[in-house]
């Protein structure tokens, strides 16, 4: 059952030490208002699962700058030099995962699969510690599912049933993460009346979503 809650209440769902998935791709489609408040609250020891760690200065990057994380699992950290700096200094554990493998691992967790075989990463350091399986003379890595305690998403619109519609390239990791976390919180631009979103238009069915947070209009103070 989906519940509409204020931004502050959403942030309070996240506890120190949790594994948190964050939708978005270099900022596009990231739940910026939730992330900003979360970083300000001084949360600690999170494991972050995301495509990247944002661009230095944006909402997601604040989690790294404010040292809210214990570990990062991402495909790319180049747009936020602070992540690489903390990693090279041994202050932050960073696991780099090929982007297609990362999204498929998340999907596996959401779909109740035990893992999948991918040719990506064979003969690279990505294969270290992983089982290799040969099918029809081709080698694959066995990659395992990756779930989370909480998924923080951003959508364009929602209805009271929790159905989500994303817009353009802001979709990216959001719909897959929606399937793979125990608690799913979506920051949405607008909430429309039930029945206004056509069943064929829905990108994430409402059954995956637990909490909706109506985004504050841009230009309005985030909180306080």
């Amino acid at each position, binding site marked *: 059952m989906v519940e509409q809650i204020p931004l502050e209440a959403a942030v309070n769902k996240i506890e120190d030490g949790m594994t948190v998935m964050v939708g978005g791709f270099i900022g596009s489609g990231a739940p910026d208002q939730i992330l900003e408040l979360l970083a300000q609250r001084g949360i600690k020891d999170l494991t972050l699962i995301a495509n990247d760690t944002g661009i230095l200065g944006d909402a997601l990057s604040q989690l790294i700058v404010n040292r809210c994380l214990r570990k990062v699992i991402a495909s790319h950290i180049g747009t936020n030099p602070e992540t690489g700096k903390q990693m090279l200094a041994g202050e932050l554990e*960073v696991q780099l995962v*090929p982007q297609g493998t990362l999204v498929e691992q998340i999907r596996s967790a959401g779909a109740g699969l035990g893992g999948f075989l991918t*040719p990506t990463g064979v003969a*690279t350091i990505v294969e270290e510690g992983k089982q290799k399986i040969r099918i029809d003379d081709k080698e694959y890595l066995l990659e395992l599912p990756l779930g989370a305690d909480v998924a923080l998403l951003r959508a364009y619109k929602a209805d009271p049933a929790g159905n989500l519609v994303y817009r353009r390239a802001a979709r990216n990791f959001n*719909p*897959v993460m929606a399937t793979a976390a125990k608690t799913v919180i979506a920051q949405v631009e607008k909430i429309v009346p039930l029945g206004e979103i056509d069943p064929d238009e829905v990108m994430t069915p409402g059954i995956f979503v637990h909490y909706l947070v109506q985004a504050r209009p841009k230009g309005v103070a985030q909180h306080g």
Partner: protein
Amino acid sequence: MDKAARMEWLIQRVAREFKTGDVVNLGIGMPVKVANALPDGITIILQSENGFLGLGPSPQEGQEDPDVVNAGGKYSTILPGGSCFDSALSFTIIRGGHVDATVLGALQVDEEGNLANWMIPGKMVPGMGGAMDLVVGARRVIVAMEHTAKNGSSKVLKRCSLPLTAARQVNLIVTDMGVMEVTPQGLALQEMAPGVTFEEIQAVTKAKLL
């Protein structure tokens, strides 16, 4: 030719590798230049790995849509006939062999078609992003890069020494000095940039050019 002219030649040369209808993923930095250099009458479909097909030119000022950015995070446009999707479908397209060609930069590439372009241990570790999937999944992998590093050392080697992005996946290497095809016998030099001699290109190539 000076360096700038050679780099321009490189872009033009890469742009001649496509035929109309090809689905192409261009590495960060390449898109606009290569797309603008396509020969007359050739229309390709650009894939943006963050989740759409039909990547168009940069928007005019004031027309930026915060939800339409390319895989480098830059404002972009979607052409008519384009489509948006999630990252799972984006990598179904990429890893599933539905991309006809990808063009990427490299730190090193070698005569076996091995590619290193994602990290320098202890130094530069931006992560592989979608590159490992692209190189494994695209039907044709084209490396486009300067032939030598800033310190003058060759980037075209007998064997890559940096951590690999993928093994034996590169099909063609286009540099500011020439075009090399990766064959079972080694690197076959197909073409040289205007004014470049065989001796010059071989001198800065660690692999034997056939």
